[in-house]
Structure formats: structure tokens, C-alpha cells
């Protein structure tokens, strides 16, 4: 018999024995979420897209700043968020990541509403409002990436939001 097959069977038996012993001893078997490189990349890509868009909006004049003129960003964001949401829902990740992705989705919707209001008022979104928007996004991205990095480092994801402390003050010009 192939050595690899024998090794795999041995590992499987060991895992079964450990699980049974653990169950007999009253341990709680808990599935730990695994680091997901694809999700990590998706989040970074989305962050880059958001940051590029916010930077583009700064100091822009009509019609470049209008919601109608930037529909492609919102359409692309909707797709990116849906893909991340599906990936997280299908994985062993706890509800923590689902909540952060939902929060990102809400922030995009809020930005959309802000720009629609500005369209009605015939003006562009202000730089200070962009800074506040950026701060909200940064809070969410930092929590998300810190969670993924904690998984990558094989640490408890509960350590994740520590990175949120470095977020710049809302309203600060960058």
C-alpha cells in the first residue's frame, strides 16, 4: 500500500481517537475559522477601490462628483460586497465577519444617499464629509483585516479589532 495512504489513515485514526477521548472527557469541540487568502485579497481590493473613489471625489467639481456620474463605483461595490458576503457565509467564520461586511455595505449605502442628496442640492460632497466617510470605512477595514491577520498568524480572532485604535480622527484632512 502506498505510504501516503498509510500516513493519511494513521492521521485520520489519531484524529478520531483524540476527538473521542476529548468527547469522553467532556471537552467542547470547536471549529476554528481558517484564514482565507481569497477573502483577505478581496477586502484589500475593495479597500483600494473605496480609497481611490474617495480620493477622486476630493476637490472635484460637477458633473464629475455627482452620484449619476459615479454609478459604476456603486455597482462594482455592490458586486464586491455580495461576493465577500457569500464567501463568509459559506465558510466556518463566525458572525463577526458577517457583521463587519454588513457594516461596510451600510456605509456604502450611506455614501450613496449622501451623494444623491448632494445631487438634489446641486452641489458636490464636501471634503470634510469625505473625511468622515473615510473614517467610517477605515474603522471597518481595519477590523476586518485585523481579524484575517489574526487568523493568518493562528491567533484567536478576538484580538482582531486592536488595529482599530490607529484610525485617524474623523474630519481630519489627509
Amino acid at each position: 500500500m502506498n505510504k501516503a495512504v498509510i500516513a493519511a489513515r494513521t492521521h485520520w485514526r489519531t484524529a478520531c481517537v483524540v476527538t473521542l477521548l476529548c468527547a469522553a472527557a467532556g471537552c467542547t469541540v470547536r471549529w476554528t475559522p481558517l484564514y482565507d487568502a481569497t477573502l483577505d485579497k478581496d477586502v484589500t481590493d475593495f479597500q483600494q477601490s473605496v480609497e481611490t473613489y474617495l480620493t477622486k471625489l476630493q476637490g472635484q467639481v460637477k458633473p464629475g462628483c455627482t452620484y449619476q456620474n459615479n454609478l459604476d463605483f456603486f455597482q462594482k461595490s455592490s458586486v464586491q460586497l455580495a461576493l465577500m458576503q457569500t464567501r463568509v457565509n459559506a465558510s466556518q467564520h463566525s458572525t463577526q465577519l458577517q457583521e463587519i461586511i454588513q457594516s461596510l455595505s451600510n456605509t456604502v449605502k450611506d455614501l450613496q444617499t449622501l451623494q444623491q442628496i448632494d445631487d438634489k442640492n446641486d452641489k458636490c460632497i464636501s471634503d470634510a464629509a469625505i473625511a468622515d466617510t473615510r473614517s467610517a470605512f477605515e474603522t471597518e477595514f481595519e477590523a476586518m483585516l485585523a481579524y484575517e491577520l489574526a487568523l493568518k498568524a493562528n491567533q484567536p480572532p478576538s484580538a482582531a479589532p486592536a488595529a482599530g485604535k490607529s484610525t485617524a480622527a474623523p474630519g481630519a484632512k489627509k
Partner: protein
Amino acid sequence: MPGLDIATLLESMGTAAAGVLQSKWPAVRSFATTEFQKIAQTITSIGAQVASGEITTDEAAILLDMQQNASRAVIASLEGMTLIAAEQAVNAALAAIKGVVNSALGFALIA
């Protein structure tokens, strides 16, 4: 923003959240305080923007919602926390400063 002191706001927010979270508070205090600081700074930024005519009160509410939403998600992602507990903590923190904020800003930013 005149009439709004971030340190005072933070103290009120922390006390209110601690009352809601009780035994969970010591574990989340550091993170929650950071988030409350962001909310307080957002409130002063919003106040300045409304006062200068850069944004309307409708837009002000959306900007606060953004930060409130993000902070709630971060607090909910802490170990032992749930979205409901995080929401209750953030709501209690905002309720604690509602009077002084709305009065200083001259409009009802916090509903």
C-alpha cells in the same frame, strides 16, 4: 465645536455603556472607548460642517449613522460580544450625550 468637550462626552458615553454591558465592560472598555472617541469626533466635525453650511441636517444624520454603524460592528466583533449587546451599548452611549449635543449643535443630530 463650541459647547462640546470631547473628554466630557467620552466620560458620559463610557459610563452609560458600562451600565448596559456590566460584567462585559472591563473586557471591551479599551476598544469601546476608542470607538466612542471616533463618534464624539464625528459629532464635532458634523457640527462644524452644518454651522458652515457645508452639509444639511439630513446629511449630518447620515454621517453620524456611518460612524455609529462602523463602531457598532467593531464592538460586536469583540470576543463575548453580540451585535445586540454592541447596539445597546452604542445606543446608551448616544442617549447619554443626546441632550448636550443637540443643544450645542442647535438641531436634533441624535434622535
